[in-house]
């Protein structure tokens, strides 16, 4: 079944699919979009190609892309900088740190003219893991624990992020700066971030399953069960890792088996990757 399409003057494609990815409640949970109130859980979420802004309107429109409100797709020259979507140039960001306790590292990663951008024939179609950026991989949840650590403060709850030990100038306690623990921290990011390897692979697997048209929705139902079980295993391991990191960063604890946990982490990511490729 062909999906809703549009003519895109920027890609040059006629009747291109508007959707890039779809997430049902199971995948939404993996992407941290589900909270304690079930009434807030969307029936499904659609991640459009980022040239598009999706909204509701009348059921009667002309199936064309143009400048008239009667067109099903209207070019809006007042807005051109789209965000809040899944695309490497949207989801890849920078962080600059300076101050007591921060090492003078210079640029750690891709320079400004080498990161993901909206140029090129694959504009908006590159995933974060495949975008080719270099340097220490962090996400925004890591900023708060890092600042708290640098200021000598701590929260009374385990953070979702980790202290970015790679940028610290002073030795850190409990083996936090050891290669083994930093490898665990790096894998934890790929496991728990919505745009890391795990989140990306499961989103691709969920999309393919939702699109499937098998009799009785068996393909969809089977994948949904696999993803639900994988989500439970991810949550359990991520909870364990982040608790241990928090205990070590702020409460004098230590991580006893970082290599074993890293191995478990890579296995879960590998399984998600397998689901994305093989279903």
């Amino acid at each position, binding site marked *: 079944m*062909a*999906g*809703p399409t*549009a003519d895109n003057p*920027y890609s*040059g*494609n006629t009747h291109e699919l508007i959707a890039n990815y*779809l997430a*049902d*409640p199971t995948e939404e949970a993996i992407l941290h*979009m589900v909270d304690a109130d079930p009434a807030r859980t*969307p*029936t*499904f*979420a*659609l991640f459009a190609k980022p040239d*598009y*802004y999706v909204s*509701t*309107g009348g*059921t*009667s*429109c002309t*199936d064309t892309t143009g400048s008239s409100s009667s067109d*099903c797709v*209207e*070019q809006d020259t007042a*807005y*051109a*900088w789209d*965000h*809040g979507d899944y695309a490497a*140039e*949207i*989801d*890849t960001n920078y962080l*600059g740190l*300076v101050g007591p306790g921060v090492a003078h590292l210079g*640029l750690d990663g891709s*320079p400004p003219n080498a990161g*993901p951008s*909206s140029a*090129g*024939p694959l*504009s908006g179609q590159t995933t974060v*893991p495949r975008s080719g950026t270099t340097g220490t991989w962090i996400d925004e949840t890591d*900023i708060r624990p890092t*600042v708290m650590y640098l200021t000598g403060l701590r929260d009374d709850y385990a953070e979702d992020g980790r202290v970015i030990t790679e940028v610290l100038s002073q030795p850190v306690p409990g083996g936090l700066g050891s290669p083994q623990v930093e490898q665990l921290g790096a894998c934890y990011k790929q496991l728990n971030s919505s745009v890391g*390897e795990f989140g*990306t*692979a499961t989103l691709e697997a969920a*999309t393919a399953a939702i*699109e499937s048209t098998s009799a009785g929705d068996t393909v*969809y139902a089977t994948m*949904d069960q696999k993803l639900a079980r994988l989500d439970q295993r991810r949550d359990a391991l991520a909870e364990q890792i982040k608790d241990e990191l928090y205990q070590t960063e702020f409460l004098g604890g230590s991580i006893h088996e970082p290599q074993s946990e890293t191995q478990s982490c890579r*296995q879960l*990511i*590998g*399984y998600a*990757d397998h689901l994305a490729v093989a279903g």
Partner: protein
Amino acid sequence: MISSDEGDHEAGANVGRAIQPTPANCDGATVSGTVVTPDVACTYPAGSFGELDANVTGLLATEKSDTTPFSLEDDTAPEFYVKGDPGRTRPRCAHSSTTWPAPRRTTPTPGTPTS
């Protein structure tokens, strides 16, 4: 500490896309190390710049003959709330989401498949 909350996708003409800004050598600025210098400014002819606002209600009705009632949070990544909160395997609900096929992944990323 300095950062931004997220990046942006430019919905418009660009280098390597089907339509490009003018003049052909425009680059906006040059970057050398950490130094950004203004250079040849780009201009965008009519029809080459601006997000594509998709009326999903109209597209579903026009292209798919699908008038399943729903509410929506407008966005590039909109969240659909199908009226009546049907289960995910109800035919009408499943129909609404499966009318949105997206490109399939064709190449694997690094990883160690375990099953």
